[in-house]
């Protein structure tokens, strides 16, 4: 980017990004993380150079959040970006003032590079792209012989406008935007951890074994894991307690869908929607087999094109509303906040994000050991789960804001009982 053009470097927030700045705080941070483990110890200075190089190629990330009269927007950020050492916090609040205004962090520890991103700026797929670019640049600066092979964006490419587009409004259909009211979801109970701490437990398994397991059941991996998650929640929290009043709410697993796979777009910004499972689990004899069929059916219904467009348009409709559009920002802020607290957060029991397979070019693979993904967990969604895989390592990461680890234990024991090896990583939050 030449120096003059940065005066007009600014971006509107995309449709899903508009809500997050208003509803985020130190408890509900709306931050997620993607990390990568390399084979050698990270050199801080070279990482800093790599990030600086990539940021000049991706002006979309070199921004700060500013308030306008009607909407907030991303404005060019002239302050320097600093990489930092990893702290204990998992997906902690990204405080603009402590972070030079940036809405993401790049951290390092031993052999790991960690990116934490505020959800307003991008979604999982966008961050994986950014991480790939940074790792490529880092290895390149170390003098390793790596080639991008069209799998990794490099800093020499020109930015294309397509990367910045708000794809949600592109596929907006005003005839198909009906709002369907939902019931409040079941909340996973437990003893809250103190001081906004987040517990993290991940299990590493063989991707091949897991794909085979899902296929034997005639399901995709996400479907299998979602069904298992529902079953685990049922067994550990609800079974034989069907008469308790809080158990009458349906268990709903929120599964984000990467819309780039369903609609033609290459945007780096938010372009995802969701499918949800939904079941009131008060019966005493729900079986895993039954849940597998249920999840498969509910996923098929939720993933039809018209249903995805409906959910997208439902969200876009509120920003197209003329009355809301021309309400000054400081009033609109409260409207969004109230709306979200009534509707958004409490409609899901937990979220289960499958970022999927991360591909690296062959020349980079010898330097990369594995990848990890994690999302924040808050007051209502006390347990969240994210899945990412690289080569034959599938990593399922649970983040929790409660002390209990019963669900994680039962979840992983299901696989060890089937004879699949599981290796656990934990941040041992209960020590503190």
């Amino acid at each position, binding site marked *: 980017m030449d120096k003059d053009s940065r*005066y007009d470097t600014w971006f509107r927030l995309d449709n899903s990004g508009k809500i997050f700045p208003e509803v985020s705080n130190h408890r509900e941070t709306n931050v997620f993380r993607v990390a990568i483990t390399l084979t050698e110890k990270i050199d801080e200075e070279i990482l800093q150079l790599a990030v600086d190089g990539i940021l000049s190629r991706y002006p979309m990330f070199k921004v700060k959040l500013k308030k306008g009269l009607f909407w907030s927007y991303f404005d060019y950020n002239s302050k320097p970006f600093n990489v930092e050492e990893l702290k204990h916090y998992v997906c902690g609040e990204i405080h603009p003032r402590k972070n030079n205004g940036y809405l993401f962090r790049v951290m390092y520890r031993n052999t790991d590079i960690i990116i934490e991103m505020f959800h307003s700026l991008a979604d999982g797929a966008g961050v994986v792209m950014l991480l790939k670019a940074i790792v490529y640049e880092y290895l390149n600066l170390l003098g390793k012989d790596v080639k991008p092979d069209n799998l990794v964006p490099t800093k020499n490419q020109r930015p294309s406008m397509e990367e910045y587009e708000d794809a949600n409004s592109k596929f907006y259909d005003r005839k198909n935007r009906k709002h369907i009211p939902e019931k409040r979801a079941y909340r996973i109970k437990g003893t809250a951890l103190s001081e906004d701490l987040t517990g993290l437990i991940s299990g590493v398994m063989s991707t091949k074994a897991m794909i085979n397991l899902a296929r034997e059941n005639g399901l995709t991996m996400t479907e299998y894991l979602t069904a298992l998650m529902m079953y685990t929640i049922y067994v550990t929290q609800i079974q034989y307690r069907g008469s308790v009043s809080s158990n009458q709410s349906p268990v709903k697993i929120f599964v984000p869908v990467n819309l780039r796979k369903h609609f033609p777009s290459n945007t780096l910004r938010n372009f995802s929607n969701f499918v949800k499972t939904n079941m009131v689990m008060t019966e005493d004899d729900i079986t895993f087999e039954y849940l597998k069929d249920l999840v498969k059916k509910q996923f098929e219904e939720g993933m039809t094109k018209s249903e995805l467009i409906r959910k997208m348009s439902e969200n876009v409709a509120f920003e197209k509303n003329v009355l809301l559009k021309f309400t000054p920002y400081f009033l609109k802020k409260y409207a969004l906040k109230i709306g979200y607290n009534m509707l958004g957060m409490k409609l899901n029991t937990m979220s289960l994000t499958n970022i999927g397979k991360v591909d690296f070019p062959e020349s980079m693979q010898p330097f990369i050991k594995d990848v990890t993904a994690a999302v924040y967990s808050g007051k209502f969604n006390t347990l969240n789960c994210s899945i990412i895989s690289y080569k034959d390592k599938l990593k399922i990461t649970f983040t929790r804001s409660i002390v209990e680890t019963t669900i994680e234990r039962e979840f992983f*024991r299901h696989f060890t009982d089937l004879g699949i090896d599981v290796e656990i990583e934990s941040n041992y939050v209960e020590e503190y």
Partner: protein
Amino acid sequence: MKYCDKCNIKINTHNSYCPLCQQTLSGETSLDHIEKYPEYISPTRKVYPITKKIILFVTIVSIIVLLVVNLATYKENPVMWSLIPIGSIAYFWVLVTLGVLSRHNIAFRFATLTTLLIGLLILIDFRSNGGGWSYNYVMPLLLTLCNFSVSVIILVKRMDYRDYIVYLLMIVIFSIVPLILYALNIVDEPWPALVSFGLAIFILLFIIFFFPKSIKDEIKKRFHA
């Protein structure tokens, strides 16, 4: 690599128990293994929020005391005299929190503090029947001073002037108010109003001539719907 025989899982850690079932792990981890996640270090509390709290507390308590005394003696002396000290105390609070402790951009702080100060002085003027010294002299001269200092800051801190320019524009437009008041015969001393108006027009022309694109972009950004 350590092992939990209850959960059947492997784990690489220096901790002695299984994170899933809290049972003791068997096996050994090599000594050079570095934990993947760092230990928690409790943050030490900073001084700054406490200072803010004390100032806010003292402010509120004194405002309440003033109001109570004023209302208790209202029968003997039916004047709301307490508004002047209350306004001054409130202004002092804003001055400390926004002017000193806050890290907002400097042009915004100048613009807000000047506007509030003008409001306070007009209030004092009215309460004490001062005869209009506040809007005759103080308002135009304060605006001139604010305009002048923000312009100097922008010229000196050339780096990111786009952030300041909107507030400068706000104050510039505000500076035209004394002249309007003069035209409406509320203000009877013309020269301070003319000075403030002259400087405002000069700055406005300067911006339009030398930063036309940045001011246009800044307006587009802030007012997009």
